């Protein structure tokens, strides 16, 4: 009994399995398989692209590093040059300043010397005048009397004579 296929069940089985096969082989499994495969290829491609991008990025990174390195070296160089130039300028300025200062000091010294000499000669002149004045006054005081004046004249004459002889 169990080994004899029932005609009704056969009929329904053919019908329903046929429908299932028709629908699923047309709209079911091929769609799923196709999509999974296309997604797989998409993922694979994306991974490949990502890998390439990484390599590219590494390259760019390396190039960038070289550029930065060069720039740094350049910077150091420029800085050094700048320092040198600055030192040079400062030294120059210093030298010039010293020179100028010396010049000014010398000038001042000479000026002072001149002033001093002027002042000294002035003082000398004044001292001479003063001494002449004083001598005059002293002489005037001494020569108020006649004999005195005579004495003086005599002495002076003596002196002149002595010096002539």
């Amino acid at each position: 009994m169990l080994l004899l296929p029932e005609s009704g069940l056969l009929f329904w089985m053919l019908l329903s399995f046929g429908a299932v096969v028709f629908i699923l082989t047309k709209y079911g499994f091929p769609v799923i398989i196709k999509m999974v495969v296309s997604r797989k290829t998409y993922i694979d491609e994306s991974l490949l692209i990502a890998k390439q991008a990484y390599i590219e990025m590494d390259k760019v990174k390396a190039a960038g590093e070289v550029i930065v390195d060069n720039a740094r070296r350049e910077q150091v160089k420029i800085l050094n040059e700048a320092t040198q130039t600055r030192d040079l300028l400062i030294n120059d300025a210093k030298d010039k300043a010293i020179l100028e200062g010396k010049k000014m000091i010398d000038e001042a010294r000479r000026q002072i010397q001149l002033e001093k000499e002027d002042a000294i000669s002035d003082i000398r002149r004044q001292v001479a005048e003063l001494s002449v004045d004083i001598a005059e006054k002293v002489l005037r005081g001494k020569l108020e009397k006649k004999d005195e004046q005579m004495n003086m004249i005599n002495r002076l004459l003596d002196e002149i004579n002595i010096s002539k002889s």
Partner: protein
Amino acid sequence: MKRLPKILFVLIFFVSSLSANLYANEPVQKTEQNEELNVREFILEHISDSYSWHITKIGEHEISIPLPVIVYSNTTGWHVFMASAFHQSKVYEGLTIAEEGKYKGKIVEIDNKGSEVRPFDISITKNVFSLLFSSILLIVVILVVARSFKKNPMQSKSGFIGFMEMFIMNINYDVIKPCVGKDYKRYAPYLLTLFFFVFTNNVLGLIPIFPGGANVTGNIAITFVLAIITFLIVNISGSKEYWREILWPDVPFWLKAPIPLMPLIELVGVFTKPFALMIRLFANMLAGHSITLGLTCLVFVTVKMGPAMNTSMTVLSFLFNVFIGFVEILVAYIQAYIFTMLSAVFIGLARVEPHHKKEKFKI
């Protein structure tokens, strides 16, 4: 949560022993012999087809879901009615369900001479209903998955759709591709449909409540159709080499010339392959259902052996049923897997390329 199994176990133990006691106290002496006989009948009734979906029996009242009867009789034409019509009167519109004989359990027509004639019967029986249900379920599930893929093809799927994707691609790549070999894509949709059809029906057969529980893949008509379709595909896609190997195999001449001994054996092989497919699935699923029912019957068979025996047997039956349940889940998958794999292998074998032995010798 850890205590849940324990509680469940005690509860089942208690209920089963209680029911056993109740049965034991009933005056069953009179029906004892009948019940003993019934075990075989009971199993056969459950694994064979029926016109209504019997659910349970409460007291004397049978609870079953009536299914439509569609019958064509040569004498009276089409009859379409619900099977519940047979509850009221045994004979309805000249049709009745045979109780004995060749057509036991089937609808028969009683002709003028009083003998039973089987009309053309395409009723929606229990198996047919389950078959239609699982077919619709399968179509819906696969189309939902396909639609999700169509909508968002590049999205990675999660949840049920992700699981189905994994399941489908596993069968596709690990079973169909290596077994069919070259050109497997042509056969993949059919073989996948085959796998999921068998698997769905197997699993639904394991579920004991309403839409499941029918013995669909354990019915020879179902496996017959599946095997026939595989047979057709295998032989239609057979290459020249395949037919040459059958009709003129590479064996000593005397084995094929006067009496075509080897070709005959090969030809028989062509038919035994799908036949084996048919019987394997049928027998495995039938056996699974029978074992489960047999173990359940242990409870009722041992009633008359006294409460102690009955109780211990109930526990044993329960434990064995749990074990067999797990085995059956495995079998549901394995049988679908084997059916698909062997179909794929047969297709692959039918598409052999000629071996280049002879040409090599020539060169």
